[in-house]
C-alpha cells in the first residue's frame, strides 16, 4: 500500500465531512467506528513498518507548489511512527469514553478533523505542510475548548489559539529564512525537511534560526515561561479536549524539536543546551511545586503535564541516543498516562460537576474500581518502574546525565516532587473518610469508562514491562539521527557533545 499515509491523514477528514449526513443518534457509533478503522490503519502501518531501517518509510512526494519548493511530502520513521499510532489510539479511546451529550455531532466531527491534523503533523516531511497541519490543529481545538468548556472557556480557547498562533508565526519566519538559505546554497527552492537537514549553516545563522524555531515549538510544549495558556486550556476544556491536548497536541512541540531544530542546527542546539536545560529545569521543578499548590484535580494533572514535558525536552537535548530515544518514548508514555489521568478526572467531574479536591475524600471506598485505576495511573505518572513512564523518564534523565550531572540531579527531583503532588492529590481525594453526603452514592466506573481506562492501564504496564517493540524502531531512527548530527556538526564542542552510540550492545 503506497499511499497509506495519505489515507491515514485524510480518512478522518473525509469521514468528518460525511459525518454531517449521519443522524445525531448514530453519530457516536459512527465516530467510534471511524476512529477504530483509523486506528487499525495505523496499526497496519506499524506492522508493515521496517523497524531496522532508520530512514523515512512510506514516503509520498507530490509537488504542490513546485516553483517555491513546497510539496506534499509524507513519510514516517521510528520517531514519528508511534506518535501517529498514539494519536489514532487516543482519539479512539477518547471517543469511546466520550460522555458529552450536547451537540455531540459537532463534537465528533471536530474530533475527526483534529485527528487529521494530528496525524498530518507527525507524518509531514515538508515544512510548510507541517506548518499547515500544525496551525490547522488549533481550529478544532479552539472549538472543542470554547464550546464545551467550563466557565472561562472562551478566554481559555482564545488564549490557547493566539498564543500558539503567535509562536508558530515566528517559526514560520524561521522556515522562510531556512528556505532562503537553502536556496542560496543550492539554487533550488525546497521546504522538504529532509533536504534542510543536509544544509550546513554557519553558527550565527544557526543560533538565530534555532531561536525562531524554538519559540514556536516551546509555546506548544509548553516551556516555561510560555506555559500559562495550558492550565487555562486544561482547566476549561472538556475531558476529551484535555485528553487530546495533553496526549497528542503537546507532543507536537517536542516532536518538532526532534524533527526540526536538532538535526537542522546541531551546533546551535549544542550551544543552546544550557539555556534550554535551565528553562526545562524551571519547568520541572517550578511547575511541580505549582501543581502541589493546586486545589483542583485537573489543574494538578495539567501542571504535572508541564513538569513532565520538561523532562522530555531535557531528554531531547541530551544529544545522545539514550536521551532522545527516551524522550520520544516518554512522549508516548506521557500521552497515555496523562491522557488517562485527564480521563479519570473527567469521570469524577461527570458525576459531581466539580474537580475540587476538597469536595472529595474517601473515594477509594465508594469507587474502589475507579480508585484502583487512578492509583495505577498516579503511580505511572510518578514514574514507577514497569510502567511506561519509567522507561521514558529513566532514559531521558540518563541521557541528559552525560551533559550535566548537577542539572540531572535537579531534574531528577521531578521524581520526588511528582510523588509529592500526585500522592497528595490521591490522598486528598481518595483516602480518608467520605465526608460529603453527595459522595456517598457515587457510581463506580461504567462499562465504556472502564473499557477505555483498562486499555490504557494495560498499555501502560505492557510497554513498561516490554517496551522493546516500540523502543527498538525509535532507537534505530534516533541512533541514525544522532550519528547524522554528529557528522554534520561543524563546531568542535558540538562534535564532542553529540554522542552517537559507541558502546554496542552485547550480541543477543
Amino acid at each position, binding site marked *: 500500500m503506497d499511499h497509506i499515509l495519505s489515507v491515514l491523514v485524510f480518512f478522518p477528514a473525509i469521514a468528518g465531512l460525511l459525518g454531517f449526513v449521519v443522524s445525531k443518534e448514530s453519530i457516536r457509533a459512527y465516530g467510534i467506528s471511524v476512529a477504530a478503522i483509523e486506528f487499525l490503519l495505523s496499526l497496519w502501518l506499524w506492522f508493515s513498518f521496517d523497524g531496522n531501517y532508520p530512514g523515512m518509510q512510506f514516503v509520498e512526494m507530490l*509537488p*504542490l*507548489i*513546485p*516553483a*517555491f519548493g513546497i510539496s506534499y511530502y509524507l513519510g514516517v520513521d521510528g520517531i514519528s511512527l508511534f506518535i501517529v499510532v498514539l494519536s489514532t489510539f487516543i482519539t479512539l479511546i477518547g471517543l469511546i469514553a466520550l460522555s458529552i451529550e450536547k*451537540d455531540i455531532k*459537532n463534537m465528533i466531527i471536530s474530533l475527526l478533523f483534529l485527528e487529521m491534523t494530528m496525524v498530518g503533523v507527525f507524518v509531514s516531511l515538508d515544512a*510548510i505542510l507541517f*506548518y*499547515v497541519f500544525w*496551525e*490547522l490543529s*488549533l*481550529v478544532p481545538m*479552539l*472549538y472543542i475548548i*470554547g*464550546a464545551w468548556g467550563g466557565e472561562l*472557556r*472562551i478566554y481559555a*480557547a*482564545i488564549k490557547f*489559539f*493566539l498564543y500558539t*498562533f*503567535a509562536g508558530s*508565526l*515566528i517559526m*514560520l*519566519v524561521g522556515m*522562510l*529564512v531556512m*528556505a*532562503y538559505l537553502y*536556496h542560496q546554497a543550492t539554487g533550488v527552492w525546497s521546504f522538504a525537511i529532509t533536504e534542510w537537514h543536509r544544509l550546513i549553516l554557519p553558527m550565527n545563522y544557526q543560533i538565530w534560526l534555532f531561536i525562531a524555531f524554538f519559540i514556536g515549538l516551546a509555546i506548544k510544549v509548553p516551556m516555561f515561561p510560555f506555559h500559562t495558556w495550558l492550565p487555562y486550556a486544561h482547566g476549561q476544556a472538556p475531558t476529551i479536549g484535555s485528553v487530546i491536548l495533553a496526549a497528542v497536541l503537546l507532543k507536537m512541540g517536542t516532536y518538532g524539536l526532534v524533527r526540526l531544530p536538532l538535526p537542522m542546527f546541531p551546533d546551535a542546539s549544542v550551544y543552546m543546551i544550557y539555556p534550554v536545560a535551565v528553562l526545562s529545569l524551571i519547568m520541572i521543578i517550578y511547575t511541580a511545586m505549582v501543581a502541589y499548590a493546586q486545589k483542583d484535580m485537573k489543574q494538578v494533572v495539567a501542571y504535572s503535564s508541564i513538569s513532565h514535558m520538561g523532562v522530555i525536552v531535557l531528554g531531547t537535548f541530551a544529544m545522545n541516543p539514550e536521551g532522545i530515544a527516551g524522550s520520544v518514548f516518554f512522549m508516548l508514555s506521557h500521552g497515555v498516562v496523562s491522557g488517562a489521568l485527564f480521563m479519570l478526572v473527567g469521570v469524577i467531574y461527570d458525576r459531581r460537576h466539580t474537580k475540587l479536591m476538597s469536595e472529595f475524600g474517601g473515594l477509594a471506598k465508594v469507587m474502589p474500581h475507579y480508585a484502583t485505576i487512578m492509583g495505577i495511573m498516579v503511580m505511572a505518572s510518578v514514574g514507577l518502574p514497569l510502567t511506561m513512564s519509567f522507561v521514558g523518564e529513566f532514559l531521558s534523565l540518563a541521557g541528559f546525565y552525560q551533559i550535566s550531572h548537577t542539572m540531572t540531579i535537579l531534574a531528577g527531583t521531578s521524581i520526588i516532587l511528582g510523588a509529592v503532588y500526585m500522592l497528595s492529590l490521591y490522598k486528598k481525594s481518595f483516602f480518608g473518610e467520605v465526608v460529603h453526603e453527595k459522595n456517598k452514592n457515587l457510581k463506580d466506573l461504567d462499562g465504556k469508562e472502564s473499557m477505555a481506562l483498562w486499555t490504557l492501564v494495560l498499555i501502560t504496564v505492557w510497554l513498561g514491562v516490554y517496551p522493546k517493540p516500540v523502543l527498538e524502531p525509535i532507537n534505530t531512527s534516533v541512533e541514525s539521527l544522532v550519528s547524522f548530527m554528529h557528522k554534520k556538526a561543524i563546531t568542535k564542542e558540538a562534535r564532542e557533545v553529540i554522542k552517537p552510540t559507541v558502546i554496542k550492545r552485547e550480541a543477543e
Partner: protein
Amino acid sequence: MLEPISVSMESLNLGTLAPMLVAIVGALGILVIDLIKKDLDKTLYVMLSVLILFVDLGVVLGQTVGQRGFFDVMLIDGLAILSQIIILAASMLFIPLALTSKRFHEYSYPEFFALFLFMVAGFQFMVASDNLILIFVGLETASLALYTLIALHNREKSFEAAVKYFVMGALAAGFYAMGAMIFYALTGSVELYKIAEVLAADNFANMTILLVGVVFMIASLGFKLSMVPFHTWTPDVYEGASAALAGYMSVVPKIAGFVVAMRVFEFLIHSDVVWVRDILYAAVVITMTLANIIALVQKDVKRMLAFSSISHAGFVMAAIMIGTTQANSALFLYWILFLFTNLGAFAMLWVSRHKASIWHERFDHPYEKFSGMIKIMPVGAVVMALFMLSLAGVPPFSLFWGKLYIMSAAVNSDYIVLALIMAINSAISAYYYLKLIVYMFLKDPAENDGTVYMKNASKPLQTIIGFSVVLTVFAVLAVNPMMEFITSYVQASGF
C-alpha cells in the same frame, strides 16, 4: 510655421485602448437602453454588465505585453494586464451581488451600472499608463463614479460616507497634482519612464525637491491605498457603503493604487533612494499595526473588515517597498487571494443584511448578530469561519499563501525584522477574526430563526459565496499556476 502632422494608425496602436473602450461603450449602451425603455429589471443590467466585463476581460487577455500606444500615453505591460485582469475579475464577481432578494436603492438606477462600468474603465486607464496626466484623469473618473455609487445606497450613512470620501479625495487630488507638478518641474516631463531617465541622468541632483514631490505622491497614493494617517476614511466609508460595494472597494481601487504606486516608487527604490524605502518601511509597519490594533476594538464586523483591509493593504505595501520581482509577484498573488476571500466575507455580510436595524441602532453587522450561528445555520457559520481563518492567515486557506510569499520575499531581501513584524501583526489580527468565530461557534444564539442570516440571499449570491469558498479552501492547488502566470508578467514588465 507648423509642419502638418501625419499619424499612421499602426503607430497609434489602437488595440491598447480597446479594453477601456469596451467598458465605456458598454456603459453608454446601458444608458441608451435606459433611454429607449424605462423600468427594465436590474437583472438585465447586471447580466449586461457582466457580459461587457467579460468581453473586456477577453480583450485584455488578448493583449501582448510590452506595447505602447497613442503617442506612448498608453502602456500595456505585464502589470497593466495583470491588474486589469484582477480588476475585471473582481468587478465581474462583485456586480452580481446586486442580485439580492431584497431591493436596494442603487440597483433601481440603470445609471448605477453605467457608472460602474465607467469606473472600471477609469481604473483600467489608471493602470495602463505611465503618464501622470492619464493616471490622474483615470483616477478621478473612477473616484467620482465611486463616490456616486456609494451615495446611491441612499441612506444617511452612505451620504456621509460619500461626502467624507469625496472631500478627502479632493484633498488627495490636490496632493497628487502638486506632486506631479514638482516631478514636472524637476524633469520637464510627466511620463514616469522619462522622469526616471532624467533623474538618473542628473544623478538625483535635486534630491530635496524630488523628495518633496515624492512626499506628495505618497500622500495622495497613500490616501487611495489607505495608508496611515491617510486612511481615516476607510472604515467610515465601508460602514456607510453597502457591503457589496465595500467589498469591492477593498479590492479594486487598491490594486489600481498599487500598480500606480509601483510605477511611481519602484524606480526610486531601484535607484537606491534610501529615503523612499525607509519612509515606506515606516508607513508599512505603522499601517499594519495601527489598523490591526484599532480593529481589535471594533464592534461591527464590517468595520472590523475595513480595518483589516487597511492592515492587509499595509502588508502588501511592504512588497512595493521590498521591490524585488518576487515581492511584486507576491503582491499580485496576495491580492488575487485576498479578492476571493474578501469577496466571500463581504458577500456573507451582504447576504445577511437586514433593512431594519434589529441588532444595533448603528451597525448592520455587529458581532452579536452572529452569536451562536453554528447552531442555527451551521453551513453559513462554517463558511464565514473559513473566510475569517483565511484572512487571519491560517493555513491552508488562501491568504496564508499570500502571506507566505510576501514574508518570504521580505526574508529573501534581508528584511527579516519586517517579516517578524508581519508575523506578529498576523498574530494580533487573528484575535479579531477569531472574535467572530468565537461569537459564531462558542456563544449561544440570540435568535432562533435560521433564515435570519439569509434574508438577502438569492441563488446567484449563494453561488458566488460557494465559488469563493472553493477558492479559499483549495487555494493551494491554484497557487503554483497563478504564481507562474504572475511572475512571467511581472518579469516581462521589468519589475
